[in-house]
């Protein structure tokens, strides 16, 4: 085999993405068809859609720049970087045309498209690594990162985990009859109660103890007297995560698995514990019973361990965000409870809301606090002073537990964000009807809020108020767009530096500011434009796509890009934690391999493209 005599080329190719995903035999074959080119400084490679001789280019040594036909910088590439994907399958209109110019002498390995195509036809399982569209490459990159066998419990479907079955009884049966059915016929802890084929109630063995025996109810009474009416259920296609969330929030231990009124099975906490390590469930339970702030602070390590397990277990970033938010909620609720013990019961109705990423359930290990209090309009000055004490206690204690105090002071302890309901209404009215640069930051934080303790209707009413305002003030959306697109994602990572759009460099990548926030902003804009009530970034895009506001391509592209950068941030935080460092949003580009560099470039480009699209669609008013 001649390929075994090409150690220098093979060695290089086999270590860079995506060739490193190929089996050695294919790597050898590719090494055997390479053409080597050398460009002196200033030499240029032009691409034309109808060029019969096309290559995928790998930079061996040197530096190149990609420029669009109008001269705008598209990217800067160094050793191990690839280019030419776009030209393997160029758009007919040549819209994606660019030139590649050597800005230092450059040695290129060129893989002929023809040969690559033939190899991939014979081995279609690898073809997506070389897809001409960034989105497919990104998606594929994610699959490499997340092996299917390794997904955690949370991403499994309820139907995969729920293996037992409840008793099914009718509402006119007596308690005794139902107990017999549960104990002797089906052997289950739970019975689903039906009436004329419809699910009307639920009874568990615990209910039997509490509501029948302890209360001395006659077992000859119909079951409908003691059952839980309109019980919570879960669909077999739901994620275990959602089931776990329902159970935790409502303090229940079993959920009938139901589609329509058909019962498919029963999911219990025992199931989840037996089948998988559901540490998060235990942590949340422990948090619920903590009696002092010190006890809660002591759980920080455990919270970090769960985060590490989720990242290491390659759980999807979206799910990690949700689980971390559930844990955050549990801390927050417990601390409000402890504050009440400290300062007495609240003097009036209130709603403790969280905002920003916490409201969107997009929490990571170093998320800061975003919270506020909505107080009943009837509150006196004294009442407000009580809440000031409560909020200060909770925010400081959260800080002690590792939830960083908000640097922008978007916290319930700040008098500005501890306000009566009517003041909040005025806030929103002002933000939406007369938006200006000074209020836009407030708006972007408080456009997403979620009640986690107290009077939920306060928050709901404010939401209704907000949505009405937005639909009446079209200019607001364009203000939001213009603000969102004023920050550009970088072009890529080059030579351990972040290449900014204007061609300047910086030596750290602020992944929040220059990537994640940009996507979240876009999701908000698209979500608002179609009246999406969910605040979750992916769901907003999905809703916009379903409403025809964005193409399927654009939807898939941005979702893939978002997942990739979230994954990158989680991994970065995880690595920092393992080294015992404080994790931040600033990533040293030196830590990126060819894999991250290549896909970050794709992700940045996708974000920039959607910014352009949003500008045209909603901007400029």
């Amino acid at each position, binding site marked *: 085999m*001649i390929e075994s*005599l*090409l*150690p*220098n*080329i093979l060695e*290089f190719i086999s270590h860079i993405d995506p060739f490193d995903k190929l089996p050695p035999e294919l790597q050898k074959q590719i*090494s*055997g*068809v*390479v*053409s*080597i*080119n*050398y*460009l*002196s400084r*200033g*030499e240029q490679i032009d691409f034309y859609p109808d060029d019969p001789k096309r290559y995928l280019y790998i930079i*061996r*040594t040197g530096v190149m720049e990609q420029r669009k036909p109008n001269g705008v910088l598209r990217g800067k590439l160094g050793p191990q970087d690839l280019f030419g994907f776009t030209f393997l399958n160029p758009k007919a209109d040549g819209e994606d045309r660019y030139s590649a110019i050597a800005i230092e*002498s450059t*040695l290129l390995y*060129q893989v002929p498209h023809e*040969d690559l195509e033939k190899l991939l036809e014979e081995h279609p399982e690898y073809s997506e690594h070389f897809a001409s569209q960034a989105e497919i490459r990104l998606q594929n990159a994610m699959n490499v990162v997340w092996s299917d066998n390794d997904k955690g419990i949370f991403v499994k479907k309820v139907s995969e985990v729920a293996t037992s079955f409840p008793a099914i009884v009718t509402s006119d049966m007596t308690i005794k009859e139902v107990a017999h059915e549960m104990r002797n016929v089906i052997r289950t802890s739970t019975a689903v109660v039906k009436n004329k084929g419809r699910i009307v109630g639920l009874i568990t063995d615990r209910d039997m103890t509490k509501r029948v025996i302890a209360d001395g109810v006659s077992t000859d009474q119909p079951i409908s007297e003691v059952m839980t009416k309109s019980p919570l259920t879960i669909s077999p296609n739901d994620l275990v995560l959602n089931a776990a969330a329902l159970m935790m929030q409502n303090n229940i231990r079993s959920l009938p698995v139901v589609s329509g009124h058909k019962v498919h099975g029963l999911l219990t906490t025992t199931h989840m514990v037996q089948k998988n390590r559901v540490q998060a469930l235990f942590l949340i339970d422990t948090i619920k019973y903590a009696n002092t702030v010190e006890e809660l602070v002591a759980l920080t390590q455990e919270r970090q361990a769960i985060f590490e397990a989720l990242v290491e277990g390659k759980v999807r970033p979206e799910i990690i965000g949700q689980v971390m938010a559930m844990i955050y909620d549990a801390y927050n609720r417990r601390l409000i409870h402890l504050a009440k013990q400290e300062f007495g019961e609240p003097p009036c109705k209130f709603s403790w809301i969280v905002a920003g990423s916490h409201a969107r359930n997009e929490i990571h290990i170093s998320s800061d606090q975003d919270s506020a209090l909505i107080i009943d309009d009837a509150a006196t000055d004294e009442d407000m002073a009580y809440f000031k004490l409560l909020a200060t206690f909770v925010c400081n204690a959260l800080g002690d537990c590792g939830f960083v105090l908000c640097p922008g002071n978007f916290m319930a302890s700040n008098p500005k964000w501890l306000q009566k309901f009517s003041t909040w209404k005025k806030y929103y009215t002002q933000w939406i009807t007369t938006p200006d640069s000074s209020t836009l930051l407030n708006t972007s934080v408080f456009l997403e809020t979620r009640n986690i303790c107290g009077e939920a209707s306060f928050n709901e009413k404010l939401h209704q108020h907000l949505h009405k305002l937005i639909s009446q003030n079209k200019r607001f959306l364009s203000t939001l767009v213009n603000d969102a697109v004023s920050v550009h994602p970088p072009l890529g990572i080059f030579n351990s530096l972040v290449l900014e759009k204007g061609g300047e460099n910086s030596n750290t990548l602020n992944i929040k500011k220059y990537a994640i926030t940009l996507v979240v902003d876009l999701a908000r804009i698209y979500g608002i434009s179609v009246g999406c009530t969910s605040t979750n970034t992916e769901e907003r895009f999905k809703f916009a796509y379903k409403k025809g506001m964005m193409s399927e391509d654009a939807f898939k592209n941005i979702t893939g890009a978002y997942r990739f950068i979230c994954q990158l941030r989680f991994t970065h935080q995880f690595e920092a934690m393992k080294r015992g460092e404080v994790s931040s949003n600033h990533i040293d580009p030196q830590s990126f391999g060819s894999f991250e560099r290549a896909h970050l470039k794709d992700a940045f480009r996708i974000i920039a493209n959607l910014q352009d699209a949003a500008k045209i669609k909603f901007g400029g008013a």
Partner: protein
Amino acid sequence: MKQLFNRFHPITQLEKKRASLVAEGNLPDAIAELLSEPFPAPESKLKDLEFFVFDLETTGLDPKEGRILSIGYLLIRDMLVDISTSFHTYIQAEKYVKPEAAVINHIVPEMLSEGKLFDEAMDEMFRAMKGKVLVAHGTVIEKSFIDAYVKLRYGLPPLPLLWLDTLVIEKSLLRNKNDSGTGDYQLASVRERHNLPPYLAHNALADSIATGELFLVLAKTIYGKKPGSLNGMYKPLYT
């Protein structure tokens, strides 16, 4: 003027020798085939030529005592080093491999027992050289071993072949920069000077690739973005 100049150009002289040797006839088949095509004109564009980049691994520097152990080559076409044209063979010559040489060349007797017969390998190489400009780094060794072979095997004088030597071109470039010309001209050192990646010198083919890349670099060093001609690359060899 050009006509006149060309008449005295070494390539023109070489072409005359080739034509007369072919006209004499009686050449062995492989060599007749090798010499069957006229040499390109000095002003030919580099892009339009095919270069035969090769390397011989030998047991010594002197063809009287040494033997060829392996042959590696590939083509440069359209000024691209085309790996798909790669060829490599060992030559059957177990008894000639001294342990010391094996260390240098990474060649052990077992490899050679699987190789081609010497004549067969040389014939194949001659046929593959047809119509190409030969390129090697330090052509002295390759040239002397080929000359010795045709003399010993066929009683022929040195063949009229069109050689380019990356070592000599490099030397002449350095001389232009007032270099004494006594420096280190080993392939790896020259490549390093031109910022080419360090390649492990494993075998005759790997060295041919390394030489091919260096050839591209030298052409660009001389011509930059302009299209180069054969003459410019050849000049250092006779001035």
